[in-house]
């Protein structure tokens, strides 16, 4: 029982990570793939921050009333990671918009079909 409770966060992280990965590899719509990538990234944030929590501790803001603090270092790294993630999402969506204007669709198989028909004609 204690093994279950102590590792539950890791298993939920794995579920979220593999769901995000599944959306990226198994779905054809470009925008849905980018959402899957965002879900994958948030599961990695959970993987870093969950082991830093100490039960009975508090947020890492030093004050007189508290003695035990949760680990501040993963917070710093994940803050950077969140902002980099939204930068990636913005660029990916800009490329998807340009693909839509050039090919007329954001579905992967329709885009490949247009490319293949161009190759057959060329």
């Amino acid at each position, binding site marked *: 029982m204690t093994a279950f409770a102590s590792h539950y966060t890791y298993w939920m992280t794995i579920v979220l990570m593999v769901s995000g990965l599944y959306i990226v590899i198994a779905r054809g719509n470009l925008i849905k793939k980018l959402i899957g990538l965002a879900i994958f990234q948030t599961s990695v944030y959970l993987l870093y921050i969950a082991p830093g929590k100490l039960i009975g501790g508090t947020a890492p*803001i030093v004050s007189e009333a508290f003695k035990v603090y949760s680990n501040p270092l993963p917070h710093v790294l994940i803050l950077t990671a969140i*902002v980099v993630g939204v*930068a990636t999402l913005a660029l990916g969506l*800009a490329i998807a*918009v340009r693909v839509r204007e050039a090919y007329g669709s954001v579905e992967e198989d329709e885009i490949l079909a247009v490319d293949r028909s161009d190759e057959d004609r060329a």
Partner: protein
Amino acid sequence: MRTEVVLRVIGKLLIPFMLLFALYVQFHGDFGPGGGFQAGVITAAAVIFYGLIFGLPQARRLVPDWVVETMVALGVAIYLGVGFAGLALGGNFLDYFVLHADPVEGQHRGIFWIEIGVLVTVAGVMLKIFYMFAGRGRGNEPDQ
């Protein structure tokens, strides 16, 4: 339309408080949760809120394109400026303790200025990306 009046009034009431909250988050990042990134996104959200209610051309008139593009570059310039100031005053790059006679006061100054740089860049980039997405196609081209 009557519902439009409701949106405009609520928008005019809320937007100053959103900007004030962004400044609060920025300057109280030393004593509570907060800092440059969160404050930059809240600032951009206030202007995006204005753009959603009053229309994109009005938002472009309030915060023009050249202001946003200058903000994008200015924040990085401030950050690098603090770094080079550390270099010029005798320490290494991005050393804060040389910025003032008392090293702890120097740290305060360094952290203050780089958080301002982060705020300006993040607000500018988020707002510019919104302008680019909302203003493209369907006849809403900016005048360039």
